[in-house]
């Protein structure tokens, strides 16, 4: 078990990444930070089960993700099994995003199945290896790889990147607008 003061410092260092993941899952800043708070409290309570030297970030992300889905399941039961609760919330957050490029991405992410979104967020956004993401989601590495691949394929179709990729291959060429003509100043 780590020294409490050391453990506290490690948790503080992990907060920015936890908030970013939480925000991309919940799409609401208030509930995202509540989820981070819940995660920190759980981590503190269970610090004796954390082995110093092992991957604290993966451990914390596992706690956060489990907490998120157990809350979501509870809420779904309370709102009579409303399917697509999360997707609609993510889509709303996309509409409120001030940044055009990020709004597009949020909207595209909202259209992915939950498991694929988790996989691409962990590997593509949070920077985990496939092995770590598999551990966090409690599935085989191969499963994560295929989820990431499917998520990438869907995202690139939704964002129409296949076409764009070829054209921005050389950095000097002007970027084609990804949204109908509203190219933001870069």
């Amino acid at each position, binding site marked *: 078990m780590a020294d409490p003061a050391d453990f506290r410092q490690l948790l503080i260092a992990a907060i*920015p990444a936890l908030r970013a993941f939480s925000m*991309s899952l919940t799409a609401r800043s208030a509930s995202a930070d509540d989820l981070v708070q819940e995660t920190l409290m759980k981590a*503190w309570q269970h610090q004796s089960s954390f082995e110093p030297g092992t991957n604290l970030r993966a451990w914390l992300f596992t706690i956060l993700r489990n907490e998120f889905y157990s809350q979501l399941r509870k809420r779904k039961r309370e709102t009579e099994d409303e399917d697509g609760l999360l997707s609609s919330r993510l889509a709303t957050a996309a509409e409120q995003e001030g940044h055009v490029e990020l709004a597009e991405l949020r909207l595209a992410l909202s259209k992915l199945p939950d498991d694929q979104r988790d996989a691409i967020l962990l590997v593509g956004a949070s920077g985990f290896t496939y092995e770590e993401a598999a551990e966090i989601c409690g599935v085989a590495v191969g499963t994560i790889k295929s989820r990431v691949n499917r998520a990438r394929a869907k995202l690139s179709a939704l964002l129409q990147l296949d076409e764009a990729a070829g054209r921005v291959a050389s950095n000097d060429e002007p970027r084609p607008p990804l949204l109908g003509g509203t190219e933001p100043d870069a």
Partner: protein
Amino acid sequence: MNPKGRPPHRMAGHKERNAGAKLGTHDLIAAKLRKLFDEVAQQPIPERFVELLHELEEKDAGQEAAKHGKSD
């Protein structure tokens, strides 16, 4: 052990990005996802979390002290 001296996290995405010279769809998606992530991760840590952890640590220390009797 020195937790701060640990090597930075290995990132699968970064490795992939360096592997290919051309900027493909994967790289575009990776760059967008990183941007989404960084948008939040680069914000300062809200004070409420620092305070929360400080309180938790003090509470534990208080309980430890009570358990062993308050002998200084």
